[in-house]
Structure formats: C-alpha cells, structure tokens
C-alpha cells in the first residue's frame, strides 16, 4: 500500500496534467469484472450499486461508473471529492444521527458514526422498523467501505503464472503501472483496458452482451409502447394502432427476455423481478391470441393494461424487485421441472390477472359510466375465459411443482407455504367456479368475487415472500414488499367498497328457484 502511494505521488508530481484522474470515465463501462459470483461489465455493476446505495443513477453529478471508480481508487490514496448521499427515511434514525429535518446524509458521515450505529443496532432487541432501518444503513455502509477499500470488484489479471481475478489494490501492481507509463500518459487507464483485452482474448466478448442489454433500457421502451397502445385503444376506433403497439411491445419484451436468458443462461423466471416481467409478457401474448380467436377488442385492452402495470412495477418498484442478475442457489439450477412448473404458474397468474383487470374495469365502469346488462354478461364471459386458462395452467403448474419437489427433495407435497398458497388460490377459484353453478354466485356476483379472489394470487405470489417469508421458498425475500402488498389490498378493498353495492343493486336480480340448477347434468 505504501508503495502504491509513493507510486501515485511520483506519477502525479511529475505529470501534473494527469491529476485530472480521467481514467475514471465512462469508457470503463465494458471492463469485465468478477462480482457476486459472476463476470459482468463494470457499467452494470456500477449502476446497480449506485442505485442500491443512493437510490439515484448519478452521484454528485458524476456518472455511476465515474463515482464507483473514484471511490474504489480511494483505496489507492487517490483523493476525490465526490459525495455519496445515503437516504435516511426512518425518523428515529434521523434523530439518532442528529440530521434535523434532513432526510439524507453522506456516507462519510455514516462512516464516522459507524461504531455508534453498530452499538445502537446491537441495543435493539426487538425486530422493529428502526432496527431494520439501522440494519439497512449498516449494510449500505459496509458496501461503501468495501468499495472504498477497493475490495468490491475483481479484475482479470494475466501478469502472474495463471489467470486470476484480483481486487484493485492487488491488481494495480507497481511494475504494471510503471511499464504502462512508458507508453502512455494515462497508465492506469491503459492497465485497466489491458485487463479487458486479456479477458476478451482468453474468454471472448460474450459478457459485453450485458452491456448492450443494460444500455438499451428495454423495459422503459416496453412501458412507453404499452402506454401508447392503451392510448391507441382510447383514441382510435380501429384495432390497427393498438395492435401495432401491442406487437411492438411483445417484440421489445421478447428481445429483453431473450437477452436475459442468454446472459444468465437460465429460464427467465427465477426471481420476483423476472416473474413479474414474464407474467405481464405472457398475459399480453395470451390476451392477443385469445382476442384474435374471439375477435374481441377487449382482450387487447386487458393484455396491454396488465402488461403496463407489470412493467411499471419492474421499472419503479425500487428495492422490492431487483433486476440484478445473480447466481442461483444450487437446488434451482439445471432443472427442467422447475422451469416448466414456474412458467406454468406464472402464466396462470398472468391469466388470472387479466380476469382481475376485467372485473375491476366492469365494476369501475358500471359505477362511473354505467354498463348495460348485456355488457355485464360479456364481462362475465371474458372473465370466465381468462379463468379457464388460469385454472388449468395453475392446476398443471401445481402438479409440475409437486413433480419438481419430488425430483429435487423426494417429496411430492410438503405443505410448504408457497405450494400451500398456490393450492389456496386454486381452491378459491374452484369454489367460485363451482359456486357459479349454484344460486350462490350469479353472473353479477361473479365479477366482484373475481376481483377479490385475485388477492389470493397476490398473497401466493408476493405475500409468501414478503409477509410469510419462511419455508423452502424464502430465497425470493426482499424488502418493501409488505407495504406494496398492503397498499394493493387496501386499494382493492376501497374499489370493491365503492362499487360493489350499486353493481349488485343493478344486476343481481334474485333468480327464481326454477332457474337454479345445481346439477350440470
């Protein structure tokens, strides 16, 4: 370390123009680094890290790569004045850090208070939101320190007897930099680029696909296109414009998902981010196919609307859904049954989501604009169509899940929360379908019940990971999900509370006993 400081001193003293530290620039984006068990371009890691640490895409006016690189070079004695800002939302934590009304502070300030923060964290015996806030702040601080020590990323090194991945202070050896200095005025940049060249020479440039993938920002495009499709539905009478946007959205999402599969080397359904993305995509495709055969414009609407919501989630959910591609736990690897089982379940959730959107649309439209009985019956039929796909796929998915569990653990069914909740979803929808044949569930009641039943899907999908968070499937756990789910439930109850009574008053005419036929035979 001392040697390195001397080296820096030497270089900077004799070449004062090199003091600009311009090796930390966006050109480093394509540098292959080893981080979190994977090889990826620095661009991807720096952006993900900055987003995680600060919630923003830039740090103090610097791009993520510049800021990340400069902070890493702090370990080499290169000073920088970039201020990394941590957002501190919890009131008690702000009070503890004496921030006054400010909801943020610098990571350097947190670093100064590290011991106090750890002590405060230890003092919290109960699992409160304050402890969680402390825990979060400390985890981010730990990452900040790791970057500052140059230990957060590893670079490809071929100078030794064998190829190796080394952390920055080990990678930037004196002789390497001095040698580079003979040919260039920016030896650090040259050394870093050499690492990229060496890696590409040995292992190819496939990793750069992730750079393109990240830079294309396809989810943003898909969001924009879905929105345009929805606007097309409202503003134009024909199907050409909305269908055009719908197909372009599908094309963009297909590209995005394909690239993701190529980068991760696995089916795109292994974490919450991917399941949300995939369900929106699959539901849109399903809606377009069903709409084509039924010749029903409503399916274009419902497919685009659900897809729009799901892309909204992956774009704006922040820490709840992480788009970061990371290695899987062993049991999820190389598994045909896992892929088919999750795919079936996620498409089924997508189909059930379509029925949910239709149900809410019918309820809200009836309350605001009013709908005719014929329209209500049409809604019931459309919902029923979506349910059919949802239920068959869900039943199939649950069985495939059993096959997977049997194949991986040796038991078909174990009352694990995730599998139990998927069975609860199936049971509740089956109760609705069976009830539909009795006097209990008239076509009018069928609609609000479907809006309500979707809450079980949300519980199975998000609730198990964010609220129950136990059992074999807890690998999907992340934060903020409980608030999201709570809000979702609340909004749905409010919609039902406002609309259901008038809806039932209008349509739920008591059927006479001669119309009731319990027996489909």
């Amino acid at each position, binding site marked *: 370390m001392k040697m390195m400081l001397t080296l820096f001193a030497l270089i900077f003293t004799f070449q004062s123009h090199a003091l600009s530290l311009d090796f930390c620039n966006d050109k480093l984006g394509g540098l292959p680094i*080893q*981080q*979190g*068990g*994977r090889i990826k371009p620095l661009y991807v890691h720096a952006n993900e890290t900055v987003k995680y640490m600060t919630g923003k895409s830039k740090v103090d006016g610097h791009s993520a790569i510049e800021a990340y690189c400069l902070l890493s070079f702090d370990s080499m004695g290169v000073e920088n004045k970039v201020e990394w800002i941590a957002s501190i939302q919890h009131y008690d934590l702000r009070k503890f850090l004496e921030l006054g009304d400010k909801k943020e502070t610098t990571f350097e300030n947190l670093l100064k208070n590290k011991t106090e923060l*750890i*002590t405060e964290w*230890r003092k919290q015996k109960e*699992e409160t939101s304050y402890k969680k806030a402390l825990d979060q702040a400390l985890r981010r601080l730990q990452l900040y320190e790791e970057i500052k020590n140059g230990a957060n990323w*590893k670079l490809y090194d071929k100078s030794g007897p064998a190829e190796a991945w080394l952390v920055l202070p080990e990678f930037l050896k004196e002789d390497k930099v001095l040698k580079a200095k003979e040919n260039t005025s920016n030896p650090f940049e040259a050394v870093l680029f050499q690492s990229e060249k060496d890696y590409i020479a040995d292992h190819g440039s496939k990793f750069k696909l992730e750079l393109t993938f990240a830079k294309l920002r396809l989810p943003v495009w898909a969001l924009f296109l879905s929105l345009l499709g929805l606007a097309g539905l409202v503003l134009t009478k024909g199907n050409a414009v909305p269908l055009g946007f719908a197909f372009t959205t599908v094309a963009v999402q297909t590209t995005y998902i394909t690239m993701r599969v190529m980068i991760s080397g696995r089916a795109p359904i292994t974490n919450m981010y991917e399941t949300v993305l995939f369900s929106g995509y699959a539901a849109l495709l399903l809606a377009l196919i069903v709409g084509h055969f039924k010749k029903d414009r409503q399916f274009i609407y419902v497919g685009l609307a659900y897809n729009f919501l799901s892309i909204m989630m992956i774009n704006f959910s922040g820490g709840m859904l992480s788009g970061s591609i990371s*290695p899987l*736990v*062993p*049991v999820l*690897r190389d*598994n045909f049954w896992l892929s088919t089982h999750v795919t079936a379940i996620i498409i089924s959730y997508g189909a059930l989501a379509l029925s949910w959107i239709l149900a809410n649309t019918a309820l809200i439209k009836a309350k605001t604009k009013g709908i005719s009985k014929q329209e209500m*019956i049409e809604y019931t039929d459309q919902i029923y169509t979506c349910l*059919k796909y949802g*239920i*068959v796929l869900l*039943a199939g998915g649950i*069985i495939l899940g*059993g*096959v997977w569990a*049997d194949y*991986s*653990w*040796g*038991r*078909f*069914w174990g*009352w694990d*929360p995730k599998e*139990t*909740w998927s*069975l*609860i979803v199936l*049971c*509740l929808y*089956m*109760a609705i379908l*069976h*009830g*539909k*044949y*009795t006097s*209990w569930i008239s*076509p009018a009641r069928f609609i609000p019940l479907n809006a309500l039943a979707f809450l079980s899907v949300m519980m199975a999908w998000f609730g*198990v990971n964010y*609220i*129950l*968070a*136990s*059992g074999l499937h*807890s690998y999907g756990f992340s934060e903020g999900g409980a608030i999201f789910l709570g809000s979702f439930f609340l909004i749905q109850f409010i919609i039902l509370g406002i609309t259901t009574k008038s809806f039932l008053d209008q349509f739920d005419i008591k059927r006479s006993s001669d*119309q009731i036929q*319990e*027996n*489909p*035979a």
Partner: protein
Amino acid sequence: MLSEKQFSKFERTVGGLKFAVVLILIFSAMMIVGTFFESWYGTDFANRVVYKKFPFMAVQALMFFSIIFAAFLRLPPKKRLYGFYTIHAGLVIIGCGSLITYIAGVDGNIMLHPNEPAREIILPDDELRITYPNEGRQFSRDLPYTAFKTSLDEKFEDLTFADFYPYSENKVIWKKSSSSFESWQSVQSSEYMISNPNVSQDFIMSLHPEATDYKSSTQMGPLAVHYLPASMSECFGNADKTGIVFWESRSKYCKTPTDYGSEIKTTKAGNRFLVIRENERLLTFFPDLSPWPLDSSLTPVQDTTLRIFNRKLFEKSPNLFLFGKKAAYFTEDKWTAVELGKDPVELPWMGFELTLLRHEDEKFPSQEPFYVTPIQSKGSLIKGNQKALKVKVRDKEYWVTDDKPISLLIDGKKVNIGITKKVLTLPFEFVLKNFKMDKDPGTNNPASYESFVTLFTSSGPSSHHIYMNNPLKYSGFTFYQASYTPNKDGSYSSTLSANVDQGRPIKYFGSLLLVLGSIWHYVITRKRKKSEATASMTNKKEALA
C-alpha cells in the same frame, strides 16, 4: 341402515355443489391459518396444529367423498361429462396415492461422515427411549403429537412420565441443596453480567456439586474466567517474590512459602517443587505445573485440602478470578482485588465492566424447561427449540430433553432415558468417500455440492455419485443430496434425504388424468357452446354446462 331415499338424499348432499363449495372454503381457510402458523411458529408447529391433525384430515376425507359422489350423481356416463369424470377420477386417484404415501412412506435423513459407515435413517418423529445398559434391555415409546404442553401420566417400571413440552426453553431456577454440606465446603454460586458498549452477557458460575449445568471456569475470547471459593480471594492480595501461594480449603487460609515455613527446591530439570508432610504421608507439589500434589509413588492426590500454585502463571495472559462477591485480576504489574456488587466494576480489558447480579452460598442454579410457543425467524426456530419430559422416580423429579438425556441409578440398576428421533436401519450400508463443493466464482456461496459414496450391499460394493437433482435409487429408497456440514478438520459431512414413496406412480397417474381431464372438459364446453350458439340456444344453459 339407510333407506334408498335417505341414501339418495345423502348422496345428493355430499355430491352437491354447495357442499363442495363449503368444503373447499373450509379447506382453504384451514390452509391459510396453517401458512400463517408456519410463518410465525415454524413448520413443525403448523403440522402439529393444522396439517397433520384430525380436522384437516377429516375435511380432506370429506372432499374425497364429495368428489366421488359428485361423479356418481352424474351417472350413467354422458359424453359431454367425459372431461368432468376424468378430472374427478384424477383427484380420487391422487387422494389414494397420497394416503398410501402417508401410511407407508418414509421421509428421513441420513448423515454421512467422511469414511464412516452409515446405515441409519433419522426419521422426523420423536420417541422416548429407555435403556438398561447393564441388562441389555431397551424400550421406546411414541411421544404425543401435540403442539401444547400435556401430561403423559404413565408408569413404566420404576419411572413415571409426567409433563411433556413439545416446545420449551430453559430458565434458571435457584434450588435448595438436597444434601447438607459442612461449613468449610465451598458450594457457592454466582450470577454475573459482563458488558461493554457493544456486548453484554450474563453468566452463572457455580461450585455446587448439584449444579451440573454450570461450570467453575470458562473462556470468553482471550479472557479466562475462574470461579473459586470465597476464601481464596486472600491468596491474590499478599505479594511474594516467588509467586507461590498455599491455600488450605478446610481452615481457609492463604500463605506464602515463608509463612508456611516450607522450602522451595528445584529439580535437575529446573522445575520448582515443595515437599509437605500431611499426617503420615509426604506430598510433593510442583506449583508451576499443577495445584494438586503427587504422593511418594508419583500418582496425583485428590483427597487433600491443601493446594499450592504459582500465581505468576496467571500474569501472562488475561485471567479473571471470581470469588463470589470479590474478583481479582493482574494488570500493570500488580494484582488488583475488587469488591463486586450491583454497581458495575471496571475491568482492564476492552472497556468491559462486571456486575454481580446474584450470589448464593447454599442454593444452586439449575436449568429447568418451561413450555413456550415456538417462534420462527428466517426459516428456523429461534425460540422453543427443545422438547422436554418430566420423569418422576419415587419422590424425585428429573427433566429429560432432546439435547440432554439422563442417566439414573435405581436400586443399583442403571437406566438411561432420552428423547431421540426415530431411526430406521437400512439393510445396506453407505460410506462417504468424497464430498465436493463448488462455489460461485469469487464468493463463498455454494454453487453445487456432490457426494461420492460407496454402497455396501449383499451383492457387493458399488460406487455412486449423488448431487443436486441426481438422486440415487436403490431397493425402493431414493437418496437426495440435501445438505452438508463442515467438520472441524476441514472435511465435510453430507446429509442425504432418504425417501420411500409407494404412492408416487399413483399420484403421477392421477395428476395426468386431472390435467388431461381439465383440458378435455374445456374443449367439450367450447364445442357445445359453439353448437349451441349456432342453434341459438340461451346463454343460461351454456353457463350450466
């Protein structure tokens, strides 16, 4: 007996749609409760309260009959109901397969240590095992499958089994001695708290012979803590160049060699020693090596009340001596003695402070189980992770836990009592030859783990490779790579889950029927809808199909 009319009514009710809807809703509600119980109190608790209890099983049985009757009601077969029959047949077959698995299946774990033969599958059920080792007799008894405290109230030979706690935690109880001690005998116990701004730890130390749960010395990181009789506190006050201290436990005095009038000699090898005459025998002490003496035949002597030790031995590394209400430590070239009480006393290491929370001269501390509702966090129990059973022998009571079996002498007969997992012995044997773990590059996260095993069967040994998603099937058993445990020597032990499922093909066949039936049902409905639409049928009839 039911009349035909009554049976028909029964059949219509049980096979009816409303009955099915009610059952499905009850079943769902029970499952919802089950998942929340699982999340809060753990998998085992949810099983003991919901999933493996009679009401839940009964609802499933009723659903089973409802499905059968629903199909019976719709006989003779109608073409448009073929999908419906197939779905219901599939469900019934899955039910039968699950029942077979429930009754006859095996689901356990086998732990393989490197190069050690293993043939025992540990099953999830607990049992009470009573062994008379000298007579070679062994008995076992199932423990109640309950989530709450219960009384067994059952006699077995000289033993009475009383309270059983499926989930318990130990609490400290201060008990009176069952036997009396003479005044010179030190049987004190103390509870202390050691803390600094970062950590705080309560600990209890005891010299009482009945305090089997507590020790008189412990190690806290680099700090060695010794709990000694109160009278020994004197030995750390007076200074002497030699560092050698005499302590007589009966008369409770501490003396230097000069006070005692004894001469320190040195062996040829340079070891200091003292020879003391006690009654008729000569005791040789090597205070630099041990406080206990050797007799003339050089065997250690335990029945003396005199100890001689070298205090200087405790000056090199951090040592804390506790004498109940007093403490002593060596720092900055001198021994410091302090009085302990409710106010914390500063220690010379890392800002630690010591507080005396409780001191008893006669009562002794004992760990006693109490029933608690278990609490699960991040997939494992953080509270209540102990099963406990109270065993009475005549007028005495003992607690047996799954961590701590007990060993008793009843009328000279030795008996061991323990709560253990049930075990299934395999007719063949495993040896773990090698365990391989790959990690994600640059991290410590396992990417895969694999066991290389040799199976010894009646037809000779064979080698197998078991890894995630590649189980070993042999003689009806399937062995899956489940987990691993690192050993102290750097090697790994591997855990395989071992499984027998006779219902497997039946469940698979039922599942296939269910999925095909569902598709068939919707295809038929669709076709009928189309033909009905062309025939301008009413919507109502369609919905009923």
